[in-house]
């Protein structure tokens, strides 16, 4: 009998295993709770895979961008704002994966492991999410882009608030165009937020990277003189310039965006040093904005020939740049070498009116030394004062660089990247007009109109 009692104790092994399983299950449920609850097949939250019951998304002036009313998800009344903020908000089906309604769906729904979806069902709405963007500025940006495809993004380089983010082509989420799937020309990549997910040939905006590398690696770069007679021989080929600039200093070479000078500087630097600087500036690395993974900018000259290195130094070759990443480089230059991480969500308010703390101003990576940042900042300012003209950017004390990225068999991308030194308007901006043509002619006016709109918006506050 005793032995039977002892043997019965072997059953404790089964009980023990059972408990291990139960604890594992509990941890599994706890860890994956919001991921599983936010599956689009969850009928508490989605109807046929579209988000219906959730909190509102507001802009920085508490303008309602999207909300749930009478069991329907309704976007802002203005069609201009609807189109301009679509890529920030995302659609209700989650096609625009980087949209706030997708990335912050569990916050919007107010899901928690503690209460599940109970509060959502009780209040027929989740948490409200307030964004840092200004919907009117976004509408202006989309308006000035016109019918072009492209991306515009601007953020406060001191605090990190993103005030404007627009991606085109876009559509009106309240009345989705019928030809959205068939008209592939007009709606090419319409579900991509080009600011986060697009990569483009940078053209001359890349000269900022080459210049930074030169400042850090070539001690006498400011004493050097470059001679431009319209083209130059690099390795076993020729690099053609956008003009005939004659004798140029380093500073003037950047202002005139001289291809001859910068391809020569790239060759002086060599593959390794230019690659190191690019990597240090965040190339070939996936940045993250809070929960959103940003497309990687790519730069690789490790096996490039001398000629290719020359082309790479002026932003051609195989280099591709993501607009958001480019904006962080400008932010770092404006902010003494380290950028402040851009952010989009200003605050989350629960159904019960309680604020949930969110990550706001936070330093990102250190891209360069403060000295380098100040030197390149002066050069970018010189670009505007000496070449583009301050009249292009009234009141802004703008620093910046244009780019005209040449493409095979396609019209060039028009770029402008820069920031304002006006203390009342500490914003950095990136404009990329796909196949827009010249950066000077096309991107500068876009950047100016957006910056003026920001200036107006922030001086009201």
């Amino acid at each position, binding site marked *: *009998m005793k032995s039977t009692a002892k043997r019965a104790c072997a*059953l404790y092994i*089964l009980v023990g295993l059972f408990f291990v399983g139960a604890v594992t*299950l509990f941890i599994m449920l706890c860890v994956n709770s919001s991921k599983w609850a936010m599956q689009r097949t*969850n009928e508490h939250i989605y109807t046929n895979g579209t988000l219906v019951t959730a909190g509102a998304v507001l802009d920085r002036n508490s303008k309602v961008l999207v909300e749930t009313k009478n069991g329907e998800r309704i976007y802002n009344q203005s069609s201009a704002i609807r189109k301009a903020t679509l890529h920030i908000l995302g659609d209700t089906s989650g096609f625009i994966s980087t949209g706030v309604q997708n990335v912050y769906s569990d916050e919007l729904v107010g899901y928690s*492991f503690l*209460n*599940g979806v*109970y509060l959502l069902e009780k209040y027929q709405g989740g948490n409200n999410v307030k964004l840092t963007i200004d919907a009117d500025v976004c509408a202006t940006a989309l308006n000035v882009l016109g019918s072009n495809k492209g991306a515009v993004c601007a953020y406060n380089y001191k605090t990190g608030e993103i005030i404007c983010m627009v991606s085109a082509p876009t559509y009106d989420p309240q009345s989705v165009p019928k030809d959205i799937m068939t008209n592939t020309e007009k709606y090419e990549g319409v579900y991509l937020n080009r600011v986060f997910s697009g990569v483009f040939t940078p053209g001359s905006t890349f000269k900022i990277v080459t210049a930074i590398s030169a400042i850090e690696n070539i001690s006498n770069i400011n004493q050097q003189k470059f001679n431009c007679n319209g083209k130059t021989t690099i390795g076993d080929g020729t690099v053609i310039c956008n003009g005939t600039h004659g004798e140029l200093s380093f500073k003037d070479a950047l202002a005139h965006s001289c291809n001859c000078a910068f391809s020569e500087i790239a060759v002086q630097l060599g593959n390794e040093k230019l690659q190191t600087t690019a990597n240090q500036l965040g190339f070939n690395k996936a940045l993250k904005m809070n929960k959103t993974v940003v497309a990687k900018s790519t730069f690789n000259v490790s096996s490039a020939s001398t000629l290719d290195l020359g082309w790479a130094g002026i932003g051609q070759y195989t280099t591709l740049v993501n607009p958001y990443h480019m904006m962080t480089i400008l932010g770092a230059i404006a902010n003494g070498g380290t950028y402040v991480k851009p952010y989009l969500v200003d605050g989350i308010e629960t159904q019960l009116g309680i604020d949930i703390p969110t990550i706001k101003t936070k330093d990102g990576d250190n891209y360069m030394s403060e000295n380098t940042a100040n030197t390149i900042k002066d050069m970018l300012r010189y670009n505007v004062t000496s070449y583009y003209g301050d009249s292009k950017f009234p009141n802004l004390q703008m620093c910046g660089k244009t780019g005209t990225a040449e493409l095979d068999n396609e019209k060039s991308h028009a770029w402008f990247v820069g920031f304002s030194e006006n203390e009342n308007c500490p914003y950095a901006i990136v404009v990329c007009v796909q196949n827009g043509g010249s950066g000077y002619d096309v991107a500068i006016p876009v950047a100016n109109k957006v910056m003026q709109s920001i200036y107006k918006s922030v001086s009201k506050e």
Partner: protein
Amino acid sequence: MDKKTALPKIKKENLLKKYKHTSRIALLIMLTVFQLVSFFQVAVDKTDKINYEILFIMGGYILIEWLYFFVFSVFLKRKSFELETIAFLLTGIGLTIVASVNPADLLKQFIAVVLGLFTFIAMTFYMGSIKRIEVMRMPLGFCAVGILSLNLILAKAINGARNWISLGGISIQPSELVKIAFIFVGASTLAKLQSARSLTKFIVFFLFCVGALFLMYDFGTALIFFATFLIIAFMRSGDIRTLLIICGAALVGAGLILMFKPYVANRFATYRHVWELADAGGYQQTRVLIYSVSGGLFGVGIGNGKLRNIFASTTDLVFGVVCEEWGIILGFAIIVMFALLTVYAIRSAGATRSTFYSIASCAAAGMMLFQVCLNVFGITDLLPLTGVTLPFISQGGTSMICSWGLLAFIKSADNSTYPEIEREGKRI
């Protein structure tokens, strides 16, 4: 050996008594309050309309509980009611879910509960005498063989596993009833001095059951029989080597089956891949996970769930419905209760009058716990999905009767179930 060990260990008994005999009236009141709250949520809908059928049946269920406690404590002087309290609680949760999801089936389920309780009472009485057990061993064994053979002959393919037979409009699951016979036969065969012949008979019986279940594609129940066989074999022999040989043989057998019948392996192809197959083979598991976490720790409330609309929500997936509507905390409380039943069985094993009781009670508790493992961890993809029910809670008559039948084995191993025997024992 039996005579010698029939003497109770008085010291241990007292200890157990102290541990077991908590205030039964307090337990009963707590149970009733819990059930009143949950029953009313189902009987009264959102527009305050009262469903009288549900109200009467649920009232009847509570009445039965009080009647049971009253009769057995006042007239039959039983002192411990922990097992019944747990079973009544679990059964009540199951009834509430049936009332809420499939109200049309409530009466049928209620009748099943009454039959289950009747089985429990009858079995507990019957097993009061060790002599009666000997008498029933062979007939029960033959009954089990007969009913499984009948199942194999008559079975129609229902829901993938051919483990149902339909008799006069009522579908029954013979394998559930055979579980009781299996433990009865196994424990009583081995309780006798182990003769090679009686052991061989049991092994043949076991192989027949498992073979029949395989032919019905009911791998879940086959596994449960195997685990129970291991427990019974170990309880009797205490020989780890024998167990290892049995397990080894089983593995080889399983390997051979997979080799010659590859479609068996296909049934387990979704295991650990449910999210990739969320709209195919992983449909049920992913919905259980999605809706369990949707409920949160406290649930969305009875009747507000979505898992209820998924196929088999009141049977195989019922644990998910509990988590979603009643809360993950209650779901895990249920898990703990099943573990407690097993612990109870283990702790009673030392003081039984005959090894039959300790073996049967441990085998029954182990069988039940193993089935809970297969069910709860199967629908949540921690184990492959085998489609077994959750004892007491899942909808289904035979499953309910079997659950209460298994409980009777645990109950009869506890000496305080038979106050007259206990008294006699003390006098000696």
